């Protein structure tokens, strides 16, 4: 059986999670063919030292400049061999995976967190249960970040460039400048989120200061987003916000409602800061601090500053 990995690309560069996708493909079978969607073949250079791939193909097309679901699916389909396809479980790649699966009349299994003996497991009901499935034949699989061990970069691959194209069905009229220049929660490996317990939106500046020290994005609970106009929905983590999977999630003044957990419970490490020792968030925290944020955040900031110095 052939496996194919679609590299995760952001702003013309290959994302680290691609190395995790290769290792996920190993748990299915053998070394995968790595496909790199790019508008400039030099993007693929980043993969020349990835270990554990049988072949690296740079799928080169103008359509890969901006995301258009149907054009990307067309262009990738025409360069990929038949087989089981592995992509990242990012918002965009889940969309693409569904398109490609439909194009090949295959089924798609999203958000895979474990692959064992040909069985794929994903969270369902917002992580309240897990579902394990078996695919009879080829399928398209998306894999969550920060779960599989990335392959090393001691390899040496030659990159084959293949020109491709697709029919574009959408047109970007304008990009919308983000209100803040901060990292988006969906892109961050560390997130510090505030909830209603922050008391006032201006107090989010304490979270931002810590975020700046450790390179984190700032997120929020729905109560914070709904209560304060200053906190945009783009920051919301949870059932009706973003699903995130960072290495570290720091929840500050967040109670840990089931719908908030839905968006962050699969984070690798969770730190909770809450003045209520009975807050449900503590049941999911690796490190829980029972204290107000007012007394905790200055200490945390100073500790991070001296560590990062």
């Amino acid at each position, binding site marked *: 059986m052939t496996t194919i990995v679609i590299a995760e690309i952001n702003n013309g560069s290959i994302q680290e999670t691609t190395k995790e996708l290769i290792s996920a493909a190993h748990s299915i079978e053998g070394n995968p063919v790595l496909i790199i969607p790019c508008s400039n073949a030099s993007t693929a250079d980043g993969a020349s030292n990835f270990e554990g791939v049988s072949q690296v193909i740079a799928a080169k097309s103008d359509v890969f400049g*901006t995301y258009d*679901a*149907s054009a990307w699916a067309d262009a990738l389909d025409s360069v990929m061999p038949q087989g089981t396809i592995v992509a990242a479980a990012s*918002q*965009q790649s*889940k*969309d693409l*995976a*569904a*398109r490609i*699966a*439909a*194009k090949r*009349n295959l*089924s*798609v299994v*999203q958000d895979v967190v474990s692959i064992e003996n040909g069985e794929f497991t994903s*969270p*369902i*009901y*917002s992580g*309240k*249960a*897990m*579902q*394990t*499935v*078996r*695919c*009879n*034949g080829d*399928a398209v699989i998306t894999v969550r970040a920060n779960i599989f061990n990335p392959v090393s970069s001691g390899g040496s691959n030659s990159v084959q460039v293949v020109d491709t194209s697709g029919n574009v*069905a*959408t*047109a*970007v*009229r304008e990009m*919308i*400048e983000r209100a803040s220049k901060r990292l*988006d929660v*969906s892109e961050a490996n*560390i997130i510090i989120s505030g909830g209603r317990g922050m008391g006032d939106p201006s107090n989010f500046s304490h979270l931002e200061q810590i975020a700046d020290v450790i390179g984190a994005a700032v997120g929020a609970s729905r109560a914070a987003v709904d209560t304060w106009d200053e906190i945009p*929905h783009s920051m*919301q983590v949870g*059932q*009706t916000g973003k699903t995130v999977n960072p290495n*570290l999630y720091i929840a500050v003044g967040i109670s840990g409602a*089931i719908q908030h957990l839905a968006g962050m*419970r699969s984070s*690798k*490490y969770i730190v909770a800061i809450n003045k209520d020792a009975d807050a449900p968030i503590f049941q999911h925290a*690796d*490190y*829980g601090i029972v*204290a107000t944020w007012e*007394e905790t*955040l200055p*200490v945390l900031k100073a*500790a991070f500053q001296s560590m*990062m110095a």
Partner: protein
Amino acid sequence: MVNIAVLVKQVPDTNAKIVVQGGTRVDLSSVKMVMSPYDEYAIENALLHKEALGGIVTAITVGDGSAEKILKDAKAIGVDELIRVDVTQDMDSNALQHVLVEAIQSVGAEVVYCGKSAADTGAGSTGPGIAQRLGWASVSNITDIEFSSKLCVIAPMGGSSAKIDVSMPAVISCDKGNVKVRKANVKGIMAAKKATVQVLSANCPSSTIEIIRHSMPPSKPAGKSFQGGDSANEVARLLREEANIL
């Protein structure tokens, strides 16, 4: 006159406790079922589309008779026509999309709205999947929309967001965004009581993805608990030395 379809799905209430029965399957028998939250945004956008350009909105769901309740809920909010595709077995994404495409074609819809993902699977495969099968444009996770001869939506794009023109026909999957969903009024609730659901039989291909089991999420080992703000020093140290982060 635009022929608009909106896809809705019945899922457990997001507050519901989920239990795995007999160690293999989730037991939903005593769980309250509701319309998946994002589908409410899909309905709202479909109704806004109708109000802007004139048209008819048909809500479509796939499932057994119990799924008709959410169709009635959709009617109460303002949807015109209701369709249930009668299927009782497990379906993988391929099978589900196949039956939905048949239903959309039978309605003759030119634009389809759906939620960005269903609250049960969280997959988000249906919108882009049916768009591909229909050969239509699609944009997923939209947070805002404007209606003219072309659709213009706002959707995430590379860590930021963009205003995107979409050619019709199209499938639009809806995130929460800036729209406020309307609530059913008395007139709507009366109309829903009298509404009839058109039931379609499905020509359902067999699934290639087989559900082996459901299980509870692996329980995390109990975390470490600290008292007082000064313990943040210790937590920062553990993040580096024990968790290898930072």
